[in-house]
């Protein structure tokens, strides 16, 4: 987990200060192994996959297939064909939303989401409801700030056709009771889509054990490259479903009159895929597997605990969501009294600390909480206790200056 294998984390700012990167929920930095494997493919044997009967194409194709298998194993999928490559979580969710709207949903059907969803897992369903293709039901938070499971139980009915929910929410960092949500949803015959964007780099996933119908995530939030994401869906569901995007690679026979779609997973991957990014994502899976989630969880839990107690010790700080680390991942959104989140994030940046400020693509949640914006810390495998201590020191300095200013 050493920072040394992340080239960008070894950089200093113009003043020679170490940089502290606390914006891992937005994107993560890349280990040298991921950069190296992508560079190796580009510089040693790059050729389009499945196209050429020559070494370069064979080698690239083999690495691409290997990456898909690694990713399938990583999330516990039964078959590698259940891994559909997309650009990112957003595209994975939109792909399912478009197919369900086309083939499955009817006007009186209901879709359930939570108020804490990222726009990616809110807007596609919201628009379906706007177009009167189904009704949207939004579950709120309980008094502690967690997903309101009681409201969910009351909302579930035979009309519920889909439940779309984040495994870990991107602002509150809360870990939703996914297993229970899936079991309850399946009892009424609803499909379940899990937004795994904030999950895959922090907790182990097993889609078979979860028994979810769809699982979506992005490569760049788990130390892999941008431009590559994954949609997991069961093989039987994918086999019986018509493709959405049409073009090259996804067809096995087309004579102008009749068509035969390609086998899985190609049927859902029209056009030249981002194969080098997929290979890079395979490298990220290797990196995470090598460290192991026991070590990752232990380290991130320690940092989360330290940051939460440090923030709680400042009385002018308001933490969004539950205060205790129970069922929380390494994401903390907060506000400091007397200063807007954007001003705070710029002041922190001046001291080499990178955090996110704004609504974090979760407008409905901020509206629900009645706050305009928040600052957000989000941790990764390379963050350290001393970085948290430095952040708290700078934050206290800013807070004191603000208080002096008020006197």
């Amino acid at each position, binding site marked *: 987990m050493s920072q040394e294998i992340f080239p960008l984390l070894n950089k200093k700012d113009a003043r020679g200060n170490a940089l502290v990167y606390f914006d891992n929920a937005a994107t993560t930095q890349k280990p040298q192994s991921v950069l190296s494997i992508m560079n190796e493919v580009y510089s040693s044997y790059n050729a389009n996959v499945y196209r050429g009967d020559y070494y370069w194409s064979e080698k690239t194709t083999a690495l691409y297939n290997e990456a898909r298998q690694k990713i399938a194993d990583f999330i516990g999928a039964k078959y590698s064909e259940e891994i559909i490559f997309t650009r990112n979580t957003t595209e994975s969710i939109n792909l399912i939303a478009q197919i369900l709207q086309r083939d499955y949903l009817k006007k009186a059907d209901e879709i359930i989401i939570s108020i804490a969803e990222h726009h990616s897992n809110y807007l596609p369903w919201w628009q379906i409801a706007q177009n009167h293709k189904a009704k949207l039901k939004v579950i709120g938070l309980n008094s502690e700030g967690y997903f309101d499971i009681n409201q969910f139980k009351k909302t579930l009915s035979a009309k519920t056709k889909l439940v779309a929910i984040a495994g870990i929410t991107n602002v509150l960092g809360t870990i939703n009771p996914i297993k229970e949500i899936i079991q309850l949803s399946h009892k009424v015959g609803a499909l379940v889509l899990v937004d795994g964007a904030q999950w895959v780099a922090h907790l182990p996933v097993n889609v078979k054990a979860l028994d979810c119908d769809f699982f979506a995530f992005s490569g760049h939030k788990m130390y892999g490259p941008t431009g590559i994401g994954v949609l997991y869906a069961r093989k039987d569901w994918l086999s019986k479903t018509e493709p959405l995007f049409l073009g090259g690679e996804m067809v096995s026979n087309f004579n102008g009159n009749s068509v035969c779609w390609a086998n899985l997973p190609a049927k859902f991957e029209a056009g030249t895929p981002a194969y080098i990014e997929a290979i890079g994502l395979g490298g990220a899976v290797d990196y995470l597997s090598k460290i192991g989630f026991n070590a990752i969880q232990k380290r991130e839990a320690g940092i989360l605990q330290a940051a939460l107690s440090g923030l709680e010790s400042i009385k002018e700080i308001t933490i969004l969501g539950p205060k205790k680390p129970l069922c929380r991942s390494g994401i903390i959104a907060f506000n400091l009294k007397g*200063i*807007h989140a954007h001003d705070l994030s710029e002041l922190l940046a*001046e001291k080499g600390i990178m955090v996110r400020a704004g*609504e974090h693509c979760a407008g409905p949640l901020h509206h629900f909480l009645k706050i305009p*914006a928040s600052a957000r810390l989000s941790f990764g495998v390379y963050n350290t206790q001393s970085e948290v201590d430095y952040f708290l020191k700078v934050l206290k300095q800013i807070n004191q200056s603000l208080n002096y*200013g008020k006197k």
Partner: protein
Amino acid sequence: MEKNKSISQFKNLLDLVGESHSFKHHGLVAHPDLTLLGINESCGDKIILQLKLKNQKVQQALFNGESCSLSALGAETMCSLLEKGKIIKPVTEKVFLKSLNFNFSPVRKKCAYLIWKTWQNYVSSKNNQIIKKKAKG
């Protein structure tokens, strides 16, 4: 050199945050003749600019709403310029920036420009209406 510049930027922004709590144009206009809303799409902040007019001349300009210190400075600057100029017409970017007198980073441009842009949009759409009316006449 770089170090000093950055320390001063940290201090400048911290000072601005303090000052922004007591901007003299922060408030509500009683019975406003014109109310404009500026929304910063990148963070959801909303600033309201309110004007009291007399014979189509600006008597009073105030702003309120949720905003960062830079958006507030932009709004404060615009209120001062509108009260000073009195006329409902565009304020050039050059005049606005000179009056703003704050060295902001490029990513904060949306904050600083929020009310200036809101005003420009209002005035240009108003001009369009006038041009349309004239064309009709």
